[in-house]
């Protein structure tokens, strides 16, 4: 080989070397790039995988963590998947047995269910489906379901998912509420009180009684303001009260006011208005209850009038009794005087018989005078002229002993210390005097005693006046307290004394009774209320 050839070869070899170096370098770079890409892809892949994992577990979590029952079904109602909550609620587990949801629906709701499904298929979602279903143990439940369709990659519906809410309790409450509302409506509608709901005086709602009280229909009343049915003179008072209520100063008020009915007649009604306020104290409504008191008022007026008449007639009767007694007593006085003068002037002319007759005449006049006095006293005992002073009975008895005629052989004993009463002195005096004079005159035995005693009861004083006189036969025990009824054989008795006693005791809300044995004596018991 010549040198030229060698040089050429060397040159060629060099070029090759250079080219290879270059190629190596490129290869190296490319391979580095490749490596980087691979590495990058690997990382990306990792990331994606993680992401996917995350999402999957997130989804699983969501699925498990949905508190409400969640069910996925195919388009034939067969359950594909359900969460724990759904299993618990329905009592079924789709993993253990096949479950077709249409079989759970209450027969009454089947048609509705199919319609709803149709709508789901058309729209893709279904909200607020409400139906009654049976769970596995055949209990009825109210459910509310919101549901939507699930599509495949070709956008064809393949399944439906739904969240079930158990609204049994809620529905029961609602049913209860509507039942209660119905009951309330019954009460309101049947109330004899007129009831109206108003806002700022404008009528919103009324019951039947309100309609019939005022003669307007509810429709008519709804166009009206309270002032339209109130009489002008009654507006001011109730408007002032309404304003106070609007300012929150009062929550309710009651007035008696006059309303004008549709036919123009008026209605007197007790009206009670209450404010219905919301939580912030602002008032939403006023509830007015009206009660027709026209008849009641008339009765009251009538009663008042009757009372006045009674008072007047009582007064009249009193005066009448006085006038009659005066007019009857005056001639008695004249007769007595004339008889006395006859006796005085003609005692020498008259024989024994004539004098006897004149004395008889005077005696009759006397007994008639007593009778008149008695009737007058009896008629004067009313609560109208009742006085209340402290009356010491010991003094009263002493006074009576001085006034009445006590036969020599009779002794009056006071066995207890007598109380001081808060009462009408004259009446108390009259009461004791009548009983005591009865007691002292009817004693025929040699030594007579009249014992006056007292016993304190819870609300009454119980007195007793006992004699050892002739006694009163049983059959008279009731009668003697009636006016003009006397058991006495004495000519002097008028039959008024004990009826006066009874009348006074009645005024003091007491009772009177007696125990008596003929030939041994009589004890009168009577009670007087301490505080009359």
């Amino acid at each position, binding site marked *: 080989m010549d040198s030229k050839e060698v040089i050429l070869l060397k040159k060629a070899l060099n070029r090759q070397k250079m080219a290879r170096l270059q190629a190596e370098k490129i290869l190296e770079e490319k391979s580095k790039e490749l490596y980087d890409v691979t590495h990058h892809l690997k990382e990306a892949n990792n990331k994606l995988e993680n992401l996917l994992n995350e999402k999957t577990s997130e989804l699983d979590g969501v699925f498990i963590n949905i508190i409400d029952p969640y069910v996925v079904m195919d388009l034939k109602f067969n359950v594909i998947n359900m969460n724990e909550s759904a299993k618990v609620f329905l009592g079924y587990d789709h993993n253990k047995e096949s479950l077709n949801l249409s079989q759970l629906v209450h027969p009454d709701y089947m048609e509705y269910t199919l319609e709803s499904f149709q709508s789901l298929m058309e729209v893709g979602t279904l909200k607020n489906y409400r139906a009654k279903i049976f769970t596995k143990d055949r209990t009825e439940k109210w459910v509310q379901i919101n549901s939507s369709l699930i599509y495949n990659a070709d956008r064809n519906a393949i399944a439906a998912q739904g969240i079930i809410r158990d609204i049994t309790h809620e529905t029961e409450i609602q049913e209860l509420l509507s039942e209660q509302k119905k009951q309330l409506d019954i009460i309101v509608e049947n109330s004899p009180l007129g009831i109206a709901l108003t806002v700022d005086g404008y009528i919103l709602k009324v019951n039947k009684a309100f309609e019939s009280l005022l003669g307007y229909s509810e429709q008519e009343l709804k166009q009206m303001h309270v002032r339209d049915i109130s009489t002008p003179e009654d507006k001011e008072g109730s408007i002032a009260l309404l304003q106070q209520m609007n300012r929150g100063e009062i929550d309710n008020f009651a007035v008696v006011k006059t309303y004008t009915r549709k036919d123009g007649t008026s209605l007197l009604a007790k009206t009670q208005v209450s404010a219905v306020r919301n939580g912030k104290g602002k008032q939403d409504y006023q509830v007015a209850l009206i009660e027709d008191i026209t008849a009641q008022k008339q009765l009251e007026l009538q009663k008042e009038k009757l009372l006045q008449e009674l008072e007047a007639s009582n007064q009249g009767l009193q005066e009448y009794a*006085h*006038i009659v*007694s*005066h*007019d009857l*007593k*005056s001639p*008695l*006085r*004249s007769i*007595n*005087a*004339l008889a*006395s*003068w006859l006796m005085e002037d003609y005692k020498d002319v008259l024989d024994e018989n004539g004098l006897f007759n004149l004395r008889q005449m*005077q005696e009759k*006049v*006397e007994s008639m*005078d007593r009778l008149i*006095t008695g009737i*007058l006293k009896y008629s004067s005992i009313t609560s109208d002229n009742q006085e209340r002073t402290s009356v010491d009975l010991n003094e009263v008895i002493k006074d009576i002993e001085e006034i009445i005629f006590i036969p020599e052989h009779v002794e009056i004993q006071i066995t207890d210390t007598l109380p001081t009463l808060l009462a009408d002195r004259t009446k108390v005096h009259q009461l004791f005097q009548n009983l005591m004079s009865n007691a002292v005159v009817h004693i025929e035995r040699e030594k007579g005693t009249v014992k006056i005693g007292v016993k304190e009861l819870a609300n009454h004083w119980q007195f007793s006046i006992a004699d050892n006189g002739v006694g009163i036969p049983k059959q008279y025990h009731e009668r003697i307290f009636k006016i003009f009824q006397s058991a006495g054989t004495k000519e002097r008795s008028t039959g008024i004394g004990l009826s006066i006693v009874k009348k006074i005791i009645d005024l003091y809300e007491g009772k009177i009774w007696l125990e008596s044995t003929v030939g041994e004596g009589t004890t009168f018991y009577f009670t007087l209320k301490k505080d009359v």
Partner: protein
Amino acid sequence: MNILLIEDDMIETMKLQRTVSKLQLKHTILEAKNGEEALDILQSPTQLPDIILLDLNMPRMSGIEFLKILKADEKLQYLPTVILTTSENRADLLECYKIGIAGYIIKPLKYEDYESKLHTVLNYWDINELVKA
């Protein structure tokens, strides 16, 4: 004394007359049958009575009406007026004392009692010093 008896009942008048004469009292009795008559007497120029005995229940003018007029009169108000009546009506009694009276005597049933009551009244007023208007 000069006594003016205002009384519509004749027997009552006789009772007073008889009492005065029987007890030999030296009194003169002027009679009036009712309040109007009595006022006529009092307004006439004759001498005024020393006392008045007045019945309450009378026709035309009642005793209380008369009493009111009497007590409203400047001069006549000083005449002692004693009521002589059968009325035990407390309302009458209170009314009379309210207007002003010199006594309230209830006519007793028995004439003897009347005599003694009137004797006491007349004796009492007999020893009294009077205004004698």
